């Protein structure tokens, strides 16, 4: 018997979690002697009230859409891909190699080529953990964590010893050639009389991310492979009886997940920096976890959660600029969202379930009340 209507589970639980996270964050802000309402106003002003603010918000949201989708796809097969950070780093390497060593005629051909390269590099970085999970039963969470650290070391080595131009001090690659530069929102939407998105890093990759949301939705709910992924996630043994190979699903799902995380490199490396730098990912791989949990692993939810985190990121930068609240406030909010939507899910769910059970009882007296118990 359903304890809660589907819409309540999809909408109310994340919103209630968000409310709790916001409440605790406000307490933290009060605790460090600042005014939470003024802080929130400042965040809204900086992130949403000017087109340049939107340009940053959407830029960050693009990153989080890719990493959020990556985690979400893996969640559908009940795999926890915590390695989005490493996959995104290596994806960025794929973008850089494609941009530096292939003479592209113009930006849109380059974008297609770099997308393919980013996805392949990201997917390959997820392949070994996937294979080890599928074939040898090594826990994918631990292996993907280890691969994050290995990715950082690999990238460091390649940047310092291979891609760094002669005589340059900081570990980063040469600037990408002109034809690979992607149009920013400023280039696309400004008119001669009206400058929009001035100086903001949001670029055409945002639309690639939207397309990725759509494609993931089609994959998960409109294809045979998506059905197999979901079936495997619900019950690996039942899926196996139905003739679905657990090895194939684990590996393929992780390849898709890694590919999506890798595509984040398009936005940071090709769209913004136009060269490969150390730490281009800035933890976005981990924010993908919060985004996927908050968005209930649905592409539309991921899109909305990514926009929310984009707003938080840009708003947090504004706070750090104008007040004494450091950017790490966003890390706290992110942690609280992960805690409430992921780990304390049952705590959030139980009172809501009780409320709906009480509602149902009063509507239909005499009906057997919903059995209480943990979800799943």
């Amino acid at each position: 018997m359903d304890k809660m209507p589907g819409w309540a589970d999809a909408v109310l639980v994340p919103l209630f979690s968000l409310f709790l996270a916001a409440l605790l964050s406000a307490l933290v802000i009060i605790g460090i002697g600042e005014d939470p309402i003024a802080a929130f106003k400042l965040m809204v002003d900086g992130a949403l009230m000017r087109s340049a603010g939107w340009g940053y918000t959407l830029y960050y949201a693009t990153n989080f859409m890719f990493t959020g989708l990556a985690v979400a796809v893996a969640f559908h097969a009940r795999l926890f891909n915590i390695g989005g950070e490493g996959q995104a780093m290596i994806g960025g390497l794929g973008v850089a190699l494609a941009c530096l060593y292939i003479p592209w005629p113009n930006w849109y051909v380059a974008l297609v080529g770099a997308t393919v390269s980013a996805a392949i590099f990201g997917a390959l970085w997820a392949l070994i953990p996937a294979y080890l999970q599928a074939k040898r039963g090594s826990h994918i969470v631990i292996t993907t964590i280890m691969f994050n650290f290995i990715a950082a070391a690999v990238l460091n080595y390649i940047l310092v010893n291979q891609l760094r131009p002669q005589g340059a001090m900081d570990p980063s690659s040469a600037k990408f050639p002109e034809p690979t530069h992607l149009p920013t929102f400023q280039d696309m939407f400004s008119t001669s009389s009206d400058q929009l998105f001035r100086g903001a890093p949001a670029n055409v990759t945002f639309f690639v991310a939207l397309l990725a949301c759509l494609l993931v939705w089609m994959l998960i709910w409109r294809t045979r492979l998506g059905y197999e992924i979901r079936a495997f996630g619900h019950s690996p043994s039942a899926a196996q009886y139905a003739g679905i190979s657990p090895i194939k699903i684990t590996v393929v799902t992780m390849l898709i997940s890694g590919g999506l995380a890798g595509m984040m490199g398009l936005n940071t490396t090709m769209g913004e920096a136009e060269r490969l730098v150390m730490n281009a990912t800035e933890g976005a791989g981990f924010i993908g976890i919060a985004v996927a949990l908050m968005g209930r692993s649905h592409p539309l939810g991921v899109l909305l959660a990514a926009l929310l985190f984009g707003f938080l990121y840009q708003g947090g930068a504004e706070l750090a600029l104008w007040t004494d609240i450091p950017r790490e406030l966003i890390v706290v909010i992110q942690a609280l969202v992960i805690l409430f939507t992921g780990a304390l899910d049952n705590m959030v769910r139980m009172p809501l379930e009780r409320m709906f059970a009480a509602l149902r009882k009063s509507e239909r007296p005499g009906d057997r009340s919903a059995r209480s118990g943990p979800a799943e």
Partner: protein
Amino acid sequence: MDFLTTLQVLDSAIRLATPLLLACLAGLFSERAGILDIGLEGKMLAAAFFSAATASITGDVWLGLGAGIVASMALSLVHGLASITFRGNQLISGVAINFLAAGLTVLIAQAWFSQGGRTPSLIGTGRFEPLTLPGAEMLTGIPLVGPIYSELISGHSILVYVAFLMVPLTWWLLFRTRFGLRLRAVGEAPEAVDTAGVSVVGVRYVAVCICGILCGLAGAYLATALQAGFVKDMTAGRGFIALAALIFAKWRPWHALYACLLFGLLQAVALRYQNIDLGAFVVPVQFMDALPYILTVVILAGFVGKAIPPRAGGQPYVKES
């Protein structure tokens, strides 16, 4: 490489292995009881900050140690609440705790000290000073044994000796006491423990609390003994190396010691020699940095003996009704 240099590298290996060892044993208690913990990093970080902050304000390193343990325990209880009481996902809870610590430490450090997310440098009684073991100076003159005793074994802070003593203590507690039997049983077959009339929830909470204490020691050691004060993200992945060491040791206390010494040695070598020239080719420093993680993946892959975790790890216990 001459004798003295070798000694110095080994000495630094011991220093660097200490926080790994404490965190690794912390994880051992938790995971043996069936509670996966990828939040070791966060707990160490929280302990590092609160111990350094308290030591810096009060000037008393012991109060700092206490504050570090309390902070780490608080996060442990959050983890317990999520994974034992509310039967949530233990991995996700661990991730959340890592971020919570990473964010809160900088936020509070900025609010309290306004030094860009760090504490003031600790001086005098605000730090754990190296202890000189009895006879260290007397024995220095004796070849071989003297330098080994006075350089390598003597001259560490008290937490180093505590960490090494924790190894036999952990072994004894887990394998020679009734409590240890129950703790291991809760991680392998909780239903059996429940049938025997012992509270699964209770044993798991105790395990999680021990984990908190040990992570607190690890973090306090980092900020008040190894270094003099807290800096942002100062754990630098040590919690994950400890996790790697735990798998490497296959969840056994003595092997945890060996694994942590090995990983400590790798860190010490990477710290001292950037790129290692082996004549035929050069081992880059990044390879040394990544080696603990690579070794763990190899172990996990089961190519060098299979690492089998406690059977009930990660699964919330639901009482049959």
